[in-house]
């Protein structure tokens, strides 16, 4: 399977250094089956620049309105990445000042990943009990873990993050999930979720995982050494 070589660049964003997901600036992909994507109400075109802009927007807004990120980014120098344990521990501070939900909306997350799987041509995936296998990021680099088309990637806190397409790659649910490579692994941001706000949460067990672009579907994929 051909994968575009990843490249990391540093861009100054709102006073912070942002390490991009590893995709080239201006990269644009189009779903092979655009009609299926259209029917599933998933954006047909993927644009790395637009993806980065969405991430910058949620980052700026989080610094402006969410107590935890205000405290963390203003006062603690160093890495901006947080662990899932830390996010759990600071749960109440991840709610914006204006108020909001205390937990990730699982139903919304499930609906989105199902539509996305349909658009990817992994229509036989039916998450949550209809035969679709679900795995966690810990198993991404495990050679024995399942990566059959339709297998879902789910984190108990972040919800559904990706799905294996019919090309065999782990596709990120990019309309809702932003991912970037850091020294510690893959940091994930939920782009659409307002509360609890989850920005740059480290996926456990993702140290060897990289982000690339699937040429067939034209959208970001998580690749492991065995890919």
């Amino acid at each position, binding site marked *: 399977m051909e994968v575009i070589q990843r490249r990391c660049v540093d861009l100054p964003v709102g006073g912070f250094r942002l390490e991009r997901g590893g995709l080239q600036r201006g990269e644009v992909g189009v779903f092979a089956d655009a009609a299926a994507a259209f029917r599933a109400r998933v954006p047909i075109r993927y644009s790395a620049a637009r993806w980065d802009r969405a991430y910058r927007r949620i980052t700026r807004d989080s610094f402006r309105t969410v107590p935890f990120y205000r*405290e963390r980014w203003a006062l603690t120098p160093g890495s901006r990445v947080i662990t899932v344990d830390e996010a759990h521990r600071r749960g109440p501070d991840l709610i914006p*000042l204006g108020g909001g939900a205390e937990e990730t909306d699982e139903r919304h997350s499930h609906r989105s990943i199902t539509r996305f799987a349909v658009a990817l041509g992994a229509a036989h995936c039916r998450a949550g009990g209809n035969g679709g296998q679900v795995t966690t990021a810990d198993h991404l680099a495990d050679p024995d873990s399942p990566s059959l088309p339709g297998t879902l990637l789910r984190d108990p806190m972040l919800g559904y993050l990706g799905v294996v397409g019919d090309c065999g790659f782990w596709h990120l649910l990019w309309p809702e999930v932003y991912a970037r490579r850091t020294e510690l692994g893959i940091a994930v941001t939920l782009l659409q979720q307002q509360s609890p706000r989850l920005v740059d949460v480290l996926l456990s067990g993702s140290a060897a995982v990289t982000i690339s672009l699937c040429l067939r579907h034209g959208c970001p994929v998580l690749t492991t050494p065995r890919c």
Partner: protein
Amino acid sequence: MSVSIQLLDPRTDPEPPDWVDFQRRQQLYPMWSYDLLRIASWTSWAPVLLGLIRRSGQVVGAVAAMCWRPGRRRAFAPPGSFPTPCVLDVWLVGSSGRPSWIFSDEIDITGQRELLRAFERAALSHLGLGCVGLVYRDVPVESVPVVTGRGRVTKPVGGNALAVLPSSSKDWLSSLRRTRRQGLRKHAASLEADPELVIEYPAGGTGLDGPAFAQLLKQHNQNYPEQLDPRSPVSAAYLEALLRRPDVRTITYRTRNSKLLAFGSLIDHPQVPALGWWAKLDLEQGGRPHLYFDSLMRHVSYVISRGGRELSAGRGQLDVKATLGFTEVPLCGVAVPRWAAR
């Protein structure tokens, strides 16, 4: 003598070199620490404005204020700027029952009044027309002349509880009403005998969990809703930084499996130690009764044991504090419309 006012935004401005010296000279409470002001300012929707008043180049006074915007708060102020429109609230984060200005001993009441007026003018000019005026909180009655004047509204607010302590805990206990004394002894004995309860009372604890404390404090304060209180909830970072200082003691009540039931802090000031935050878990959520009285008794015993003669217990619960030997020191609040600050 020339007077100059330096206005500092602790979020972005570096700490002036003579500030530490002034703090030490005046034996200021730890809440005046520049680092704590910086943390408070970053993590509050009302950023802090610190005014340093210099006479002939020497710092002779300081005013801590916060700048809040009326209405619903959905966002923190952008770095390096203050909200507009705004009210300048002369209140030091973490302070209760004390004015939020401080002057060197050689400045008399008239001098303080002149210097405070100079601060008001400088602050209003710095904040621009968006600042509608000032509010002074917790002004002791004897200091009211410093801030009153034409167009200024002065109103009495709840008093500060202050206890003059005897030389031994035994004397303090025997000075209380009999029922209160017996109650305190009974509660202390029952808490000591509780095998599930772990009580710790260290100075500058390192194992303190700021987020858990901040969450408990937030829950606790929801039981006492104060209308129109513009103050931001205390952040975990601020609580952690304050409680880790060696001049702050924190009493914690936990279960054996480390569930936090209550905590209370004491600002261990050499002259007038002061009680800081107190928060406890509701009984319905697994909290224990009588912890407040127990914490107060331990604080009083500690202050007496290290030779302290006074203890300030802040505002609120004055009737309860009166049964523990505290007396009320009346306080006022003063509102200053922009046009009156000349």
